[in-house]
C-alpha cells in the first residue's frame, strides 16, 4: 500500500452546504416519537434504550416524547403502554387490531404511516432489528423522508435538527447525517448501542387510541407459524454480561477453540470480528461490531482483534475492555482499558487456566450451598 495515495472522502460538492429550508407543510411537525417493538408479548429492550435517548432529544427540543405501540387488542398492548410511561414517555399512541398480532410489513407500515400523517412528529426512532429495519424502510419510502440506519449517536443541533451519527465506508469512519428539509427525521439504532435508562414506576398518562384502516382480508401476507430459536444454541451476545471474542490474530479456524474454552471457563458468550465470519470460521450470529452485534458487557476480552472502527463502535459500551494483540500499535489499544502485547494463541490457554484456578473454590461453594 506504499504507493496508495489518500483522497478526502468523496462527498458531492454542495451536499454539505445544503441549507435548511423547511417547507411550510412540515412546519407543524413536532415532538419525538419512539416505536415500541412488541413481539409475542414482550417489548424488545431496544425500545426502552430508545425511550432513554428520545427523552434526551425531547428535553433539548422542549417537546414531548411519545411512545407508539402497535399490537393486538388486549393485555399485551396495555402492558407495553405502562412500560412506555415507566421509561419516560409523556404520551402513548396505540393502534390495536387483530391483524397486528404478529409482525407483518403491510399492516404495521400502514398503521405507523397513518399515525405519522395524522399527528406529525418531527423525529421518529425505531430499533435496528429485523422488524424495525423492515418497517422503517417502507414507512420512510411512503413518507418520502430521510432515514438514517444504525446510528451510534443522536443529538439535536443548534437549529433544532436531528444530527444522526453512524459509521460509514464499511465502518472505517463516522459520518453525521441530517434530514434538513423533510419530516419526520427518521433514524434506527441497534440494540445495546444506547444505555438502558432507569425504569421508574409511573401512572399511565395520556393515551391516544387509533383504528387500523385495514382488515385481515386486505392483507396479502399470512403468518403460518413461528419457530422460536433454541435458546441454548443461539448466541445471546447482545445482552451477555461477559464476552470473549477472537479475530484474525488467531491465525486459523481451529484456534477459535481457545476462545470457546476461555468463554466456557468464565461463563461468557463467545464471538468474533467480521473477517472471521467472512472467512466462514464462525457463523454470522456470532459477529461482533457495527454490522454484527453491538455488545455492552461488564467484561469484554478481545483476542487477536486489531480494532477497526466498525468493531470499536460495537464494543465501546463495555464496562471493561481487555485486549490481547501481538501488535503494540493495534488500534484496539486506543480504546481498551487493559492491554497485553502478546500472542493470543499462547496466552489464551494460560488465561483460561488462571481463571479456572481463581474461580473454582467459589464455584464449589456455590454448588455446595
Amino acid at each position, binding site marked *: 500500500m506504499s504507493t*496508495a495515495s*489518500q*483522497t478526502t*472522502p468523496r*462527498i*458531492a460538492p454542495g*451536499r*454539505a452546504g445544503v441549507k435548511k429550508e423547511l417547507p411550510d407543510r412540515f412546519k407543524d411537525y413536532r415532538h419525538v416519537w419512539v416505536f415500541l417493538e412488541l*413481539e409475542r408479548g414482550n417489548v*424488545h429492550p431496544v425500545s426502552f434504550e430508545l425511550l432513554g435517548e428520545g427523552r434526551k432529544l425531547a428535553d433539548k427540543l422542549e417537546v414531548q416524547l411519545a411512545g407508539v405501540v402497535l399490537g393486538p387488542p388486549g393485555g399485551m398492548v396495555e402492558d407495553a403502554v405502562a412500560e412506555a410511561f415507566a421509561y419516560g414517555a409523556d404520551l402513548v399512541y396505540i393502534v390495536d387490531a387483530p391483524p397486528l398480532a404478529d409482525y407483518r*410489513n403491510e399492516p404495521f407500515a400502514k398503521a405507523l404511516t397513518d399515525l405519522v400523517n395524522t399527528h406529525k412528529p418531527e423525529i421518529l426512532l425505531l430499533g435496528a432489528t*429485523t422488524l424495525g*429495519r*423492515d418497517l*422503517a*424502510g*417502507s414507512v*420512510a419510502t411512503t413518507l418520502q423522508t*430521510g432515514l438514517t*440506519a*444504525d446510528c451510534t449517536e443522536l443529538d439535536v443541533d443548534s437549529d433544532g435538527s436531528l444530527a444522526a451519527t453512524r459509521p460509514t*465506508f*464499511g*465502518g*472505517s*469512519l*463516522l*459520518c453525521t*447525517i441530517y*434530514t*434538513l428539509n423533510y419530516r419526520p427525521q427518521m433514524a434506527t439504532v441497534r440494540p445495546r448501542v444506547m444505555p438502558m435508562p432507569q425504569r421508574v414506576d409511573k401512572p399511565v398518562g395520556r393515551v391516544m387510541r387509533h383504528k387500523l384502516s385495514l382488515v385481515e382480508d386486505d392483507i396479502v401476507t*399470512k403468518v403460518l407459524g*413461528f*419457530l422460536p430459536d433454541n435458546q441454548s444454541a443461539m448466541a445471546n451476545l447482545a445482552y451477555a*454480561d461477559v464476552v470473549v471474542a477472537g479475530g484474525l490474530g488467531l491465525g486459523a479456524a481451529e484456534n477459535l477453540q481457545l476462545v470457546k474454552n476461555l468463554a466456557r471457563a*468464565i*461463563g461468557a458468550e463467545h464471538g468474533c470480528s467480521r473477517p472471521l465470519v*467472512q472467512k466462514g470460521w464462525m457463523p454470522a450470529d456470532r459477529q461482533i461490531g457495527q*454490522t454484527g452485534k453491538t455488545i455492552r458487557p*461488564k467484561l469484554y476480552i478481545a483476542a487477536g482483534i486489531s480494532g477497526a*472502527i466498525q468493531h470499536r463502535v460495537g464494543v465501546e459500551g463495555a464496562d*471493561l475492555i*481487555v*485486549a490481547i494483540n501481538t501488535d*503494540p500499535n493495534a488500534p484496539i*489499544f*486506543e480504546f481498551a*482499558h487493559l492491554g*497485553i*502485547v*502478546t500472542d493470543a494463541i*499462547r*496466552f489464551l490457554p*494460560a488465561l483460561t487456566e*488462571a481463571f479456572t484456578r*481463581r*474461580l473454582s473454590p*467459589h*464455584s464449589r461453594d*456455590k454448588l455446595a450451598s
Partner: protein
Amino acid sequence: MHIVVCIKQVPDSAQIRVHPVTNTIMRQGVPTIINPYDLFALEEALKLRDVHGGEVTVLTMGPPMAEDSLRKALGYGADRAVLLTDRYFAGSDTLATSFALSQAIAKIGETFGRPDIVFTGKQTIDGDTAQVGPGIAKRLDLSQLTYVAKIASIDLDTREIEVARRAEGGTQLLKSRLPCLITMLEDTNEIRRGSLQQALCAARSQVVKWTAADAGIDDLTRCGLRGSPTVVKRVFAPTARAESAAQIDTAERGLQDIADELIADILTRRPALEHELAFNSGT
C-alpha cells in the same frame, strides 16, 4: 418465471485503509467486489430458475465500471444484465436509489417481461442500511419479504409463495403472493461456480446500459443528490480516548504470571465481577 436480482459493486471493505495522520480514506487500489450479501440472492434466483425455468436478470446502478460486477454475475449464470448509469444518479441516498432502481425494474418488466420476484441482498457491506430492498417493494407494490432464510415453496399457478423469515427470537413462516421482493439472508446457500460455457457467454454477451431517460425516468429531481432527503454534513474519525490501554508488562515473565496479574487487574477495576464469573462458571 422472470427474476430480477439487484446487486451492488462495493469496495472490498477488508482492504479499505484509513490514513493514520490525515484520517482520510485511502481508496486507490482498493479492489471492488459484488456485495457479498448479494451473492446469496443471486444463487437463490439461479436455483429457482433451474427448478421453474425462466430467466434471471441482474440489475445494478452505479458508475460505468460497475459493468464488471454484472459480467461476473453473468459468469455465474445470469441470463441478462442491466446497468443503470447516469451522472444524475450521483450522490443518491437510499430513497433516491430505490426510486431509480424501481423505475428501472418497471422498465425491465415492460421490455423483458414482468418479474415474479425481485431479489436483493440483506444489506450492502459499504452502506449497511438494508433500506433499498424495502424501498423498492413499497414503490412497486410488491409483497415485502425481508431476511428470508429459506424459500419453502412457490406455486406458479396459484402465485403463492411460502418462506421462512428470520425474526427477532425465532423464524417466521409466511405465506404470500407473487410478485414479491425478497431480501435474502446470508449463509443460506453457496454461490455456484459458473461453467466454462457461461464464462464465455459472459465475455461475449452485451450488458444493457440505460441512462435515466432510457429507464423511463423523467422526474430527475427525484434522482441523485436532489432526490435525497438526507444530507451528509461531516465525515470524521472518532476521537481517541483520553488514555490508551494500561499495558501489562510481559517482558521475561511466564504466561501464568501475566495471566494472574491480568485477572487481579480486572478484579481490582471491577470487584463485582469475581462473584459473577464464579457464579457463571459454576452453573
